[in-house]
């Protein structure tokens, strides 16, 4: 089966670089599955998971908090704001972050503060969801 080059980078470093049969990315208007010879696409990413698949199985699951996705027929580039491998997500820390974000949303007065707090909450929830689905898939295998 033909493969496509996938590069995932964040401002803190290169997370993944390799080939895949399919990459599933959380674009802002819904998840996109990218296979070789995809039409060029440029879009924003929301918080969620990027799944790099080989042989019909997930090879890498990477959590991103948002960013930019560029697709060329032979290449996928994920420019993530921050990214980490699903294996590295610390569940306790993620729960704590979610709780903190929830409190922040409840306590904020001004609109601007509510906005940032809600964005943080969305990221915290997405992180937990990624962890959960990642574990489920791992268990099923």
């Amino acid at each position: 089966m033909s493969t496509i080059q996938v590069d995932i980078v964040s401002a803190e470093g290169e997370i993944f670089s390799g080939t895949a049969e399919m990459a599933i990315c959380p674009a802002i208007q819904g998840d996109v599955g990218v296979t070789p010879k995809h039409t060029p696409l440029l879009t924003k990413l929301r918080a969620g998971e990027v799944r790099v698949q080989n042989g019909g199985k997930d090879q890498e699951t990477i959590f991103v908090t948002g960013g930019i996705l560029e697709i060329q027929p032979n290449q996928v580039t994920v420019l993530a704001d921050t990214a980490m491998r699903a294996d590295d997500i610390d569940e306790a820390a993620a729960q704590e972050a979610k709780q903190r974000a929830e409190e922040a949303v409840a306590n904020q007065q001004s609109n601007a503060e509510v906005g940032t707090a809600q964005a943080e909450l969305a990221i915290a929830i997405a992180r937990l969801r990624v962890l959960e689905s990642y574990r489920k898939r791992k268990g099923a295998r």
Partner: protein
Amino acid sequence: MANAKEIRTQIKSIKNTQKITKAMEMVAASKMRKAQDRMAASRPYAEKMRNVIGHLADASSDFTHPYLAGGEDVKKVGIIVVATDRGLCGGLNINLFRKTLQFMQEQEKAGVEVELSVIGRKAGSFFRGVKANIVASKENLGDTPHLVDIIGAVKVMLDSFDNGDIDRLYMANNSFVNTMTQSPDVKQVLPVVPVTDEELPQHWDYLYEPAPAELLDGVLKRYVESQVYQAAVDNVACEMAARMVAMKAASDNAGNLIEDLQLVYNKARQAAITTELTEIVAGAAAV
């Protein structure tokens, strides 16, 4: 011949200086390692970003963003200069400033006005000294530059680009080649220079999600910020490397000076002893 005591104090003061330069060399060496790690970590992002934006400029889109096109009729250009806050790092800053000044003179000869946004105290004081037109400055970034600190200086330039005050935006910075070499360079940031990828067809365009106007605005702003941020991170690594090399040279130089002075001192001391002896012998002979 200078007397022995004078030479002794001179040797002592050089030894003290040498201690300082040695300490600075070691501090710079350890900071450089950290700065290099940071630089290596954020480089892939900046490079990929540059690639994507290069593709974007190459795409034949119906929608043209001002950051991607234009810049033919140039009346005024902006330059973002990234330099260090502190001195004692050899010719690092001055090489960059010389290159920038040369570039500015070329622009002015062509009848193009220049305005500057300076990052780093040394850049501020130098360009204020040559009476350049400075519209924004940012100082005291520290050893770990943060994006939020840089955004202000970048935004001033982006705003005047948006308003049509400047037609081109350049960035002058040092790029880190290796510990011994840092190369100063003035690069065009806006409008974006297209990258032609031979594998791509002649006419193609992206699908944009959401609409191009909104998407490109965000993407291109982030592109400029990432390039300037990378320059600032590179600059710290350059600064530390240049300082380490400069301080090593200073310490070595101090060592040579001490050696030479020590010889002079020994000679002076020996001469004093000889004179004393001759005097004693002459005195004894007289008696």
